[in-house]
């Protein structure tokens, strides 16, 4: 029983990190119809920048905030300078964001080298929690709580605020929102940097658990893409369900069937897409 609980919690931890990453990808696509393949690079950049701060004696929490803000600023620059110029052109979006993956990946390799790095767990959460006979790190529990907190925040944001209302309308028909007098450009930028910030936050929080190494952005990106494909693009709910599903399958699959755990995830994706091409909660038609 302990074993079961511990593994579920581990799966949830990974799932929440993936949720932070995938929800931004999903919302940005839903609203802007822009697929940002460099979203995984925001994750990686977040963890590397936080590592640099912690390494130079900064407090973990300060590093968390600073890294997130820096990536958000970078996201704003990328959105304004590059992404905003290629709306509606899919090939251009792919090439440009793949180009960004290579540029950001190579710069991080240049600065931080190719070794496996990790952010130390903050002192405040270095304890472990007793689960029956076994122990579970408090930090991982904190990551789960953060994931749930942001899911709740997104729900509140989407359903209870004025901005959320505009975003919901925008997913349905952005042109109409623009015609009603809202400034689409500002909404796009805001949503984009919000997504980038979520990814960076995921990166920093994942730093003590997953660490960071070159080409990690691809692993994260692939998982996030599968999540949004299963959950459906344009909705954070889909991202949440998909992320929890993948996290838990990953945790148990690695123990029982290590060589094919990834295949199960792909299998689920294919089945979902054959039955419902737009994903479980897809709000954007395929």
């Amino acid at each position, binding site marked *: 029983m302990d074993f079961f609980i511990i593994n579920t919690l581990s799966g949830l931890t990974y799932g929440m990190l993936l949720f932070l990453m995938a929800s931004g990808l999903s919302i940005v*696509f839903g609203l802007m*119809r822009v*697929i940002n393949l460099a979203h995984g690079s925001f994750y990686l950049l977040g963890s590397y920048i936080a590592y640099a701060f912690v390494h130079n004696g900064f407090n973990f929490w300060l590093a968390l905030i600073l890294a997130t803000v820096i990536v958000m600023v970078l996201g704003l620059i990328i959105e304004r300078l*590059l992404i905003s*110029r*290629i709306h509606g052109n*899919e*090939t*251009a979006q*792919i*090439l*440009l964001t*793949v*180009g*960004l*993956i*290579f*540029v*950001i*990946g*190579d*710069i991080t*390799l*240049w600065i931080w080298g190719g070794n496996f790095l990790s952010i130390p767990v903050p002192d405040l959460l270095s304890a472990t929690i007793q689960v029956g006979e076994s122990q579970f790190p408090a930090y991982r529990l904190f990551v789960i709580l953060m994931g749930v907190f942001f899911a709740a925040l997104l729900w509140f944001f989407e359903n209870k605020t004025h901005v959320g209302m505009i975003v919901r309308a925008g997913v349905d028909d952005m042109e109409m929102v623009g015609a009603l007098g809202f400034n689409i450009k500002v909404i796009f930028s805001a949503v984009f940097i919000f997504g980038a910030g979520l990814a960076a936050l995921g990166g920093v929080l994942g730093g003590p658990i997953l660490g960071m190494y070159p080409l990690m952005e*691809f692993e994260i990106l*692939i998982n996030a*893409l*599968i999540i949004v*494909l299963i959950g459906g*693009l344009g909705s954070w709910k889909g991202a949440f369900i998909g992320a929890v599903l993948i996290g838990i399958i990953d945790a148990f699959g690695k123990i029982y069937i290590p*060589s094919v755990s*990834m*295949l199960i995830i*792909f299998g689920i*994706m*294919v089945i979902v*897409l*054959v039955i419902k*091409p737009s994903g479980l909660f897809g709000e954007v038609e*395929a």
Partner: protein
Amino acid sequence: MKSTILTIFLLVAAVFVLPFLMSPFLVYMITEVLIMGIFAMSLGLIMGFGGLHSLGHSAFFGLGAYTVVVLSQMVSSIYVLLLVAILIACAFAFVTGLIAIRSKGIFFLMLTFAFTQMLYLIFSQSGYWGGADGLGTSIKPNLGFVELTSPLSLFYLIGGFFILSYLLLRLFVNSPLGTGLQGVMENENRMIALGYNVRNYKVIAYIVAGGFAGLAGGLYAFKTQFASPDLFGVHMAATVIIMVYIGGMGTLFGPVLGAGIYIFLQNYVSTMTDRWSLIMGLIFIALVLFNRGGALHLIQLLIGKVSSYKLNVAKSKGVSLNELAKNKGTE
């Protein structure tokens, strides 16, 4: 028809004469360009003529290479090896194509990407076929009557396959099937209304493209004697897209030109700096922001075929009539 014969004649002459004019190293590089040229042409077929943007085209290339490397332990005939490589690539294209072609645009792209990553994981994590380290072979192209061992004979062999592929793809593009495919790309709804089975056109084109990519992968295995999971990587998939993009979409020869430019640039830059990845990324971004139709269109423009250039741009990038009219107005 006359132009086809002329093109083939020129290609054959060029392939024949090149080794006499160039250093062995250049010949070696052009061998690679020709292989990647077949690969890029096959993607160019579905991207430029079918509007199917795939981020998973490296799947077929990798499958072709693995087929040759794995089977070479049992079979030595190049005909059997390449034929099986093509058939396996076609089969994978058929199965994944049926699922992926239901979706459009970004969804199609992500599905093809996911399928390819699936292969990457299978080949890198499984215990067979060398796992993450890849698998080597010592196979040499054996034509039955003669075994080709020198780099020069390999160049002629691949040159031959390149010309054959170009010819076949050209035939395909100009066939009713190919023109139907272009019709689907330009206006799918109208084609449906006219009674065409749009899905079949796309699936067939996808299978054909997969087959040629499998051929390219098989030839690649003969050249490098090696297959690794990296062949399925996103790097490979993005590289071939960029080749098509550099050369220009909506033509068959553009992607080949793109492959040439890309490979020579890569070799040149790699000798000077380790930051090829960074530079390549910047090239991607610059191309997207400043490219208007690719290198082949640029050359056509320079030659003075301004009118045909405009038409091609309109074809390949889907410029609206309004935009064309606006361009006309400013001149």
